[in-house]
């Protein structure tokens, strides 16, 4: 270690690494370990009963399913947003750019109430959709809508700089070689931004899984139908079922962690594949 410090051209490795580990321990590892140890106080049977009751399983399906779907929707529309913001100049561009970040800053409860009001059957937008038989507020659709809302900036902000980085010449070169617009997009642009899209997807997904505030106002929270896992955890806490709450929480934790690991692995592979030596 001593020799490494002496020869490293980057100063402060010891201090920075030490700080990182202490911080990670205090802020992430200790609280998460507490979840684990609390869960361990219950027997295996009780744990299994808590995490596999039909109502809990339905909530997993909703939470993870809606989060994945919302992240996927955000990948499509976030890409279009980023494209418009990078490629075109139009009046009010600065305003649009700033509005993208609003879901970051807005208290989630405010967003939830606003969305619920607008999309309920007698709200301004819900009213238009009702004759078509489309219900949004107080159904799983509402959950999806709220998760799309909060996840959008993640995709836009990760893709935007990478897209801006792609020189116009590369697209001109593709066109000059005879590629159609579609071929240029699929073979040249998409591979370039794919790692960033995946990062945006992962972040939007992670945010959506943990989202609570905005969802509970619009979801209706009907058990087995529109009840998300974080709400179930709160419900258990309110019933003083601490062990049950942490049991469900730990299942969620493991699920999320595994999914994020997979996405990270995919990203590493893509990076290796597409940006070798860069």
């Amino acid at each position: 270690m001593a020799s490494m410090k002496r020869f490293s051209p980057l100063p402060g490795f010891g201090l920075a690494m030490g700080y990182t580990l202490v911080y990670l321990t205090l802020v992430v590892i200790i609280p998460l370990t507490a979840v684990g140890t609390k869960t361990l106080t219950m027997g295996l049977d009780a744990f299994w009963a808590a995490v596999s009751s039909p109502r809990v399983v339905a909530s997993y399906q909703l939470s993870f399913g809606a989060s994945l779907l919302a992240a996927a929707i955000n990948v499509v529309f976030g890409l279009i947003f980023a494209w418009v913001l990078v490629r075109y100049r139009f009046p009010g561009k600065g305003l649009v750019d700033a509005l993208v970040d609003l879901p970051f800053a807005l208290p989630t409860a405010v967003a939830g109430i606003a969305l619920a009001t607008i999309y309920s059957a007698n709200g301004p937008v819900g009213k238009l959709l009702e004759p078509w038989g489309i219900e949004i507020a107080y159904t799983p659709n509402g959950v999806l809508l709220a998760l799309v809302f909060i996840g959008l900036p993640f995709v836009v902000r990760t893709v935007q700089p990478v897209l801006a980085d792609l020189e116009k010449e590369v697209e001109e070169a593709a066109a000059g070689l005879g590629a159609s617009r579609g071929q240029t997009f699929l073979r040249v642009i998409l591979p370039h931004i794919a790692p960033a899209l995946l990062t945006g997807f992962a972040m939007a997904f992670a945010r959506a899984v943990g989202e609570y505030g905005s969802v509970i106002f619009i979801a209706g929270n009907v058990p087995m139908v529109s009840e998300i896992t974080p709400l179930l955890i709160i419900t258990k806490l309110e019933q003083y079922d601490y062990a049950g709450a942490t049991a469900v929480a730990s299942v969620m934790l493991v699920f999320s962690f595994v999914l994020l690991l997979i996405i990270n692995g995919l990203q590493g592979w893509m990076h290796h594949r597409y940006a070798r030596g860069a």
Partner: protein
Amino acid sequence: MSISIRNISKQFGTFQALDDVSIDIPSGELVALLGPSGCGKTTLLRIIAGLDYADRGQILLDGDDASARHVRERRVGFVFQHYALFRHMSIADNVAFGLRVRPRRERLAEAEIRRRVKKLLELVQLDWLADRYPPQLSGGQRQRIALARALAVEPKVLLLDEPFGALDAKVRKELRRWLRQLHDEIHVTSVFVTHDQEEALEVADRVVVINKGKVEQIGTPESVYDHPATPFVANFLGSVNLFHGRVEDGHLHLGEHALALGAEGGSEGRAVAFVRPHEFDLVPGWHADGGLPARILRVAAVGPSAQIEVSRVDGELIEVTISRDAFQLLGLAEGDQVSLRPRHIRVFQAEALAA
């Protein structure tokens, strides 16, 4: 395929990038568009390619009006200054790109595509890099790959935009010789843009000198260098000494001194004259009968020639280049008095300089 550029004009906002430009490029020729940055040469190249569109005028490819044709349909190969390779594709995939994006019924079999890619990589002498990725290559290698990629679709015309602009001096020199050899091998009509006069004069069959959106002169490297049509061309090609004076009875009068003009002469009146550094004879001492009296300020005698900076009596600086051996024979040193006798003077009317 021949290229005819007919009366092309292009404006960006209030800036006139190209002003009524007409050039004819016969099939198989290698032509340089030479001019200072911002003179419109790259814009002209992009208009030929179909990457930009002219406000007025026509581009004829092989006699057919291609002005409205999309870049995809013009069958031109374009090489960019900064290579514009596809970073996420291997070198072989980069070169194969143009062949793989063809409509299915025109597309070659994969084995044939691979065979062609291999041949092209051999042509640019980089077949051993086929499996690498662009970021792993040096600038010179990337530009050769970009060229191979452009040639893969068998273009009728090859257009190169400052192809060596981003490379260091030594690689640049190697690569431009190589480009000339390559052109002699494949004979595809080629146009390249450069601001480097040495590059244009060395590589091209013909040079088109452009300034402020207008063609100043078109000709072989020898003719534009030896017989510049305008003061701009004289000034832009190679280093040159500029004199302001008057032409009277076959002499150029500079202050109280007069220099005899050769057969070319010049019309009477106020004039600007150009003399290249290597077109002076140096005579020790001041002589009443001829030559400009001056004093040697500095001498840099490195390599085969001696660069001598002399100062005229009125303080104006003049650059002179003579062979190092000749300089040593003269036995001159810094501070000595000399007379300058130009062997060749190019004279233009003073009004022409303003244009």
